């Protein structure tokens, strides 16, 4: 009995130590961030920015945020659908599906996004297809990111053990059922972190749709900056907003990851 009590006391002491250590680590982490932020702030202070000017245009700049987020959210959703189809095509034994999927990922990953934006904005009208600026931008971003996400989803699908698929098939499930019930739910856990990463990258890549005259964050920052010959101020301001958005969305992402990881916790 006494023995058991002693063990419990030791366990308690260890967990207290561990908690104290974790707290200390967190404080160190926070201090590093504060220090680096201060250094960055000092650097920018030396740029002799006109803060009154920045504050004056803040509202105008911020009105670009919903467009940036909206374009990115719609595009990543469509890109996921495209990516799933392309991944299934790549893994398929059908030569046509395989060929189409590999050609798509090769062409898209092999050419710059800006060129693709112009192909859709200025190229498609030559064929009589005139999409407005925002749909053109969404199309370009979804098609581009779909190709990268296809590779992520393919990796996710391949991460599910072959034995599980065989077991499910031997239970009498069809291939579609195996995909839907066994493979994809498990692949999801592997796929979410890199897709979140893609979304964060897209938030900034959406700036490329500004060449089509979409009044998103970067468009607004560059136009105001040039007009007052204070481009650096406005671009740094826009950068700060992008960073804020990235922090927000990476927090959301780690929540989602936490949820999906639950089944795997001991």
């Amino acid at each position, binding site marked *: 009995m006494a023995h058991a009590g002693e063990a419990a006391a030791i366990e308690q002491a260890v967990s207290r130590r561990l908690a104290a250590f974790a707290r200390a680590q967190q404080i160190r982490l926070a201090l590093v961030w504060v220090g680096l932020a201060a250094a960055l702030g000092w650097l920018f202070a030396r740029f002799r920015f006109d803060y009154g000017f920045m504050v004056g245009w803040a509202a105008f700049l911020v009105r670009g945020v919903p467009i940036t987020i909206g374009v990115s959210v719609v595009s990543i959703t469509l890109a996921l659908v495209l990516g799933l189809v392309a991944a299934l095509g790549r893994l398929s034994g059908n030569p046509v599906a395989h060929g189409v999927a590999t050609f798509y990922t090769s062409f898209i990953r092999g050419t710059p996004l800006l060129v693709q934006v112009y192909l859709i*904005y*200025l190229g498609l009208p030559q064929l*009589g297809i005139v999409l407005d600026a925002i749909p053109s931008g969404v199309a370009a971003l979804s098609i581009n990111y779909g190709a990268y996400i296809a590779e992520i989803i393919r990796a996710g699908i391949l991460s599910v053990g072959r034995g599980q698929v065989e077991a499910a098939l031997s239970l009498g499930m069809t291939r579609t059922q195996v995909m839907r019930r066994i493979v994809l739910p498990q692949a999801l856990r592997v796929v979410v972190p890199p897709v979140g990463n893609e979304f964060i990258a897209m938030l900034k890549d959406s700036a490329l749709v*500004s060449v089509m005259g979409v009044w998103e964050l970067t468009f607004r920052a560059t136009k105001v900056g040039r007009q*007052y010959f204070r*481009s650096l101020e406005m671009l740094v301001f826009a950068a700060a907003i992008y960073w804020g958005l990235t922090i927000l969305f990476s927090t959301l992402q780690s929540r989602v990851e936490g949820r999906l990881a639950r089944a795997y916790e001991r």
Partner: protein
Amino acid sequence: MRRRMGAVAVALVVGLAVLPAGAGAPRDLLDEVLARGFLFVSTDPNYAPQSFINARGEMDGFDVDVAKEVARRLGVRVQFVTPAWEAIVSGRWGGRWDVSIGSMTITEDRQKVLHFTPPYYFTPAQFAVHKANTRFRAVTDLTGRRVGVCGGCTYELYLRGTLKLVGETVEFKVRNAVIRTYETDADAIQDLALGDGVRLDAVLSALPTLVFAIKRGVPIKLLGDPVYYEHLAFAVDRFSLRDPTRFVQRLGEIVQAMHADGTLTRLSLKWYGVDLTKKK
């Protein structure tokens, strides 16, 4: 925009490779604009004071005022689109907008892809140097020096010695300049402002743009006299999906009328403080 999107949907559904013509006889661009009740005007809000975004977040400037007046005279409403300059000068707009009212210089090369109206005003092309500069006293002193210009615009062609203007003979006074190209004039001006000779020795830009920068406190000053005059006009896509002939003609008549009744002079005085609507 919505109407055209509808048309596109129809085109996609029936699988046509070209925009469907309206019921009956095919309409030309002028009919299309009048029927639609909207004039889609492209202008690049990178160039104050002719086209910029004002403190209320709206399009404003000389070109914007001119465009509104043109639409009023056509009896339609105006809608601005703001694509990148490259997308405007390259032509083949695919019907995205009807006309560029964006202080575009008439050049022989651009005439291959765009129709131009008669000029609505003229801007002097002018060199500027940093305020602290004492090295250069005349434009010819810039020979072999680093000069900043917007890429693909007439200023770059001038420095290359290949500029061919319509209605103007160009004398190339600066030879062998080290050309530094930027996305817009404003970027070049900001680089010059870093200091005398830091990145650039001079910029070549439109006189109104430079004067505007000086007024906004940018530390630069003008050098010598203007080197040439640009004839600025409205442009219409030569490869327009609908026949643009009558539309270009009508725009030309409107420009002439706005010259004759003093509207353009009034707007020039309002935005530039001088009358730029008459050559020199």
